[in-house]
């Protein structure tokens, strides 16, 4: 004899997979994730290149020789020559990105802590370094000394792998948060359909005459909505990994960074997707089953779409660090775990606290729905 929960689940899944709207919510939204990853990466790359090329107008308050002119030209610096007072005025008016003064052989970079000044400053340092090297080499040659013997006694190579890359963690966390949002949207439709929709269509009365305990009805509905939500989540994760792989090969901003999730992170993220699917499905069913009509349920569930993502998004933007307490707060704990993982941190206690708090919320929500389905109020809200 088949279990009643199994029969309910089979019936619910049949209805969900045969409903075009539920199916499209489940499968189409994840397709937006790779588009978002690639789009954000392209945007960052263009911005970076624009920043590098944009801030190169330098004021020079001294006379330059031919060598300096050559270096300035090679580095693409647009030199503006003038008196200190004039250049200072031009800097204030944002006409130049910084200006350089010189006393004897001492150069000074002048400006404030504007972003444009810091980009231009890096260019000026290169110019000064190149000119210094030229003068030193020239001096040594005059003294009949091989410059290589003096200047390259000590060499320096950079062999630093970037553990934290601003762009990679930004794109990965946002893609993961987008998966969370997709799960919420995907759970909303079947949850509405299986509760308020069933009430509106008149099939709920039929269902309540069947010899099935309300517990079995609810668990069947809950599992069916959770499966739909989890399918969206895992499809989103798969497409996100594909998009990250493509991005790491396409964009220079990710050079030296392993953009894709490690196998361990992939397992943890999969578990987070699963637990979040269960949580959001329970909440959606709890809210929608209190509504009389499909439309009313959809309106009631709209805030949940925002609540599921915005607290976490704000926490990420404010660079809130993970903590024991935050790990127990639904919705925010997902973001803190994702942020930790993308920064290479695996805090098992925080992860465990997130799962435990999620399970507690799911149990409470299910208990409340089962109680509601035992009462005739589920049929006659008012």
């Amino acid at each position, binding site marked *: 004899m088949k279990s009643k929960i199994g029969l309910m689940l089979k019936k619910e899944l*049949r209805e969900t997979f045969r409903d075009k709207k539920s199916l499209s919510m489940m499968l189409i939204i994840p397709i937006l994730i790779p588009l978002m990853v690639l789009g954000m990466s392209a945007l960052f790359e263009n911005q970076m290149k624009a920043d590098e090329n944009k801030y190169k107008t330098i004021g020079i308050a001294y006379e330059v020789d031919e060598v300096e002119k050559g270096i300035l030209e090679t580095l693409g610096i647009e030199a503006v020559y003038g008196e200190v007072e004039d250049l200072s005025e031009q800097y204030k008016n944002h006409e130049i990105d910084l200006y350089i003064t010189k006393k004897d052989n001492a150069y000074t970079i002048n400006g404030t802590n504007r972003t444009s000044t810091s980009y231009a400053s890096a260019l000026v340092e290169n110019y000064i370094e190149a000119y210094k090297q030229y003068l030193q080499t020239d001096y040594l040659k005059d003294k009949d000394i091989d410059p290589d013997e003096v200047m390259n006694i000590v060499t320096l190579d950079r062999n630093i792998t970037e553990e934290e890359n601003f762009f990679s963690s930004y794109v990965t966390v946002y893609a993961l948060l987008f998966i969370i949002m997709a799960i919420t949207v995907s759970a909303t439709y079947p949850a509405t359909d299986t509760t308020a929709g069933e009430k509106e*269509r008149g099939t709920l009365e039929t269902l309540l005459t069947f010899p*099935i305990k309300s517990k079995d009805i609810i668990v069947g509905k809950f599992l069916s909505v959770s499966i739909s939500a989890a399918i969206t989540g895992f499809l989103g994760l798969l497409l996100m990994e594909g998009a990250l792989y493509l991005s790491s090969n396409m964009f220079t901003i990710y050079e030296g960074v392993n953009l894709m999730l490690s196998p361990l992170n992939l397992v943890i993220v999969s578990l987070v997707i699963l637990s979040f699917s269960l949580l959001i499905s329970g909440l959606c069913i709890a809210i929608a089953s209190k509504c009389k009509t499909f439309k009313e349920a959809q309106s009631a569930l709209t805030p949940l779409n925002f609540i599921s993502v915005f607290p976490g998004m704000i926490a990420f933007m404010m660079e809130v660090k993970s903590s024991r307490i935050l790990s127990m707060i639904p919705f925010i704990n997902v973001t803190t775990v994702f942020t930790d993982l993308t920064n290479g941190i695996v805090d098992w206690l925080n992860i465990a606290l997130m799962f435990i708090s999620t399970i507690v919320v799911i149990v409470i929500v299910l208990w409340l729905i089962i109680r509601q389905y035992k009462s005739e109020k589920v049929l006659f809200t008012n």
Partner: protein
Amino acid sequence: MLKVENLKKKFIKQTSKNSKEEFYANKGISFEASDGKIIGILGPNGAGKSTLLRMIAGILEPTEGSIEYDGMTHEKDEIVIKKSLAFLSGNTKIYNSLSAYELLRMCAEIYEVPTNEIEKRIENISKTLEMDKFLYNRIENLSTGQTQRVNIARCLVHDPKYYILDEATSGLDIISSQIILDFIKGEKSKGKTILYSTHYMEEAENICDECLMINEGVIIKRGTPDEIKEYTKTTNLRDAFFKLIEGGKNEK
């Protein structure tokens, strides 16, 4: 045997934006239904027929009173009672995205029909109700009459002892109504107990062994159709009903 005693149902009605009012849809209904009988529950819209049948089917909880099926109650033996029941109303909807076959199979499994009997039962019911041509079609593609036949079929699949039929012919054409009436007669001959609510008095007169005339939540007369006609000195249940209502008004 089904035994209903002093059944009352209170609802709270919103009368205006800030005020609510209590009202009783059933005000103490008692009756018994023996095996193999068709009991007609007759009355106009709003008389309390559907509330009464929903309480008997276990969908609504009575405010007061008791319902016993062969000594069992919904409170203690909910699942056993529901297995012996079939509830069908004019408003009963079925799952449109399933095919008739899938629905019947699902119902048979829910009612725990032995696995080796399921196919045979579906085949027999399909033949009896002439469903062969659309058995594997989705319900959403069926006509109203065909859908109602599927609805009857899902009531038959677990071979229940009690049928609760609430305005089952409401809104149906003459052919579809006749299918339901034939089905009721057929089940009666098998010894099944049938509670049949309708506001079509002629229909009730033809098939009911006993009638409960209900108005404003109370039974105003109980008896066989002939007894009621004799009591009211009328020739049909329709006139009898009007006479009973008028009598009630005069008494008031």
